């Protein structure tokens, strides 16, 4: 495993220098990357780990009897252990590698939900959910007749916890909510949400896609039954994500995709399935991305969440104070705590037009509905501009953003 570690005390300039793409351009201008909530850029340590793996250690996993394959398998399975430590799960047997957060939620819907719920059973979502945590449940509703209930979002951007408690009922089978909103940045009280759900016998899934890159996650402390997140938002490669599921649940769930590697024996009349997380990992996985993901977790753990959260929270506060100086600019969701995500609208300028002006200045933000159409509807906006911070962003990036927005207000005045 090749990881070049920084010496303490950590120097932010050196950390930023780890990300080669930040020396590049967007529309011929120096890149100002403010779209990490969509996907994070990668440090050279992750890029090199993947390249090193393909050069020295690559073979298919679990099957070969030669030493190279044993090496490859060990690197893959060591990463499973590493994920268990990263999110403080009880056992590596509770970690399933999937393609990403979206696939993880679909897996739970089809393997856990489809096989044990009936028409009229209820799943509670929230108004702030990403489509990945809405559409799989909608599809399950079409298949089985389950009912979806929705926790409203307050004007502050917080979940209406009073309304949540009235939605919980003996018919509730699952509460599935996001840990942090990809639009508002607001961090939800997931431990409290879980306790209330468990009190009435419902299971809980937490979508951690926007939380894991920014704050330390302890799934045992939260108490949730399922926790899902993606590598590519954590400075790792695309193509891999994690479904954490408590062991008794995972063991009780039928397989989701069939094929090699998730079986014990196969004949044309009978198939017996593998035990543990392997039961949900059919076929050859994105092995190199799992190894790259390992390098990303090492990178984060070396920098440490105290440094990351201090840096990002300071940047968020700076961004909010600077954005509020722009006439006609409104930030969606004022509640804290938040991760470093800010969505806003500007009077008289459509988000798509604002995004294009910023694009022209080299600034990468997201303009649109952010895969959260119900939330856009709730705040009565067609779309927003979203700036989101990664650990490599600086106050210079915020200044560039504000300057770009002001240029847009002059263009459209």
């Amino acid at each position, binding site marked *: 495993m090749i990881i070049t570690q920084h010496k303490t005390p950590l120097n932010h300039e050196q950390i930023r220098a780890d990300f080669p793409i930040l020396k590049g351009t967007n529309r011929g201008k120096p890149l100002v990357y403010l779209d990490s909530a969509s996907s994070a850029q990668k440090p050279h340590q992750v890029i090199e780990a993947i390249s090193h793996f393909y050069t020295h250690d690559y073979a298919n996993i679990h099957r070969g009897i030669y030493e190279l394959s044993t090496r490859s398998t060990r690197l893959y399975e060591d990463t499973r252990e590493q994920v268990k430590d990263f999110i403080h799960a009880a056992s590596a047997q509770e970690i399933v590698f999937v393609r990403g957060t979206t696939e993880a939620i679909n897996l739970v819907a089809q393997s856990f939900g489809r096989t044990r719920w009936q028409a009229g059973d209820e799943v509670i979502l929230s108004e702030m959910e990403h489509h990945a945590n809405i559409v799989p449940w909608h599809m399950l509703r079409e298949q089985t007749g389950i009912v979806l209930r929705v926790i409203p979002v307050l004007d502050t951007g917080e979940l209406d916890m009073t309304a949540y408690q009235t939605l919980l009922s003996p018919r509730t089978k699952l509460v599935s909510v996001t840990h942090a909103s990809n639009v508002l940045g607001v961090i939800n009280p997931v431990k409290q949400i879980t306790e209330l759900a468990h009190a009435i016998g419902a299971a809980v899934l937490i979508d951690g896609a926007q939380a894991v890159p920014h704050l330390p996650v302890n799934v045992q402390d939260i108490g949730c039954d399922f926790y899902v997140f993606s590598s590519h938002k954590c400075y790792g490669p695309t193509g891999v994500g994690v479904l954490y599921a408590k062991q008794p649940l995972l063991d009780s769930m039928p397989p989701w995709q069939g094929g090699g590697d998730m079986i014990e024996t196969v004949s044309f009349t009978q198939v017996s399935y593998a035990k543990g997380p392997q039961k949900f990992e059919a076929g050859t996985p994105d092995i190199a991305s799992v190894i790259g993901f390992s390098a990303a977790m090492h990178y984060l753990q070396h920098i440490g969440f105290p440094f990351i959260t201090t840096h990002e929270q300071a940047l968020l506060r700076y961004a909010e104070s600077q954005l509020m100086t722009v006439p006609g600019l409104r930030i969606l969701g004022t509640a804290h705590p938040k991760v470093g995500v800010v969505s806003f609208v500007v009077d*008289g*300028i*459509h*988000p*798509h*037009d604002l995004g*294009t*002006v910023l*694009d*022209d200045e080299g600034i990468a933000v997201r*303009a*649109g*509905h952010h895969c959260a*159409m119900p939330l*856009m509807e709730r705040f009565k*906006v*067609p*779309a927003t501009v979203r700036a989101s911070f990664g650990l490599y962003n600086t106050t210079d990036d915020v200044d560039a953003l504000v300057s770009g927005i002001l240029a847009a207000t002059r*263009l*459209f005045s």
Partner: protein
Amino acid sequence: MSLRELYQEMIVDHGKHPRNVGKPETATHCQVGHNPLCGDKLCLYVTERNGTVENVHFEGSGCAISVASASLMTEAVKGKTVDAVRDMFAGFHQLVTEGKEPATDMGKLLIFAGVMEYPARVKCATLAWHTLNAALNNDLRDVCTE
């Protein structure tokens, strides 16, 4: 300079003060179009008689490009035959995707040549035209440029 080309004065003006907005009594076709990617949505009201597009009006909201394009389209197609409008649609599409001036006389619409540099905005510019085309084809489905 490409941003200046994209957001030149006429486009910004039509985006802020679109022409031919409203729902006329005379409309013979009504068609909805939307671009879910950025929330542009419009309703076109076409008044067609004997193979000629007498008038087009619209209602809706969206980004400056989509609104300006709809506004300038309503001016450009007024009084043209349905066949001529179809030629303009093809010409406009070529203009915004390739940046080349088509054979058809596009008049003021040439100002949209700058859209080509911003591929993400092509669907904004063509929304009104796709919607008009669907209306003239009596396509009853909503138009979506996603």
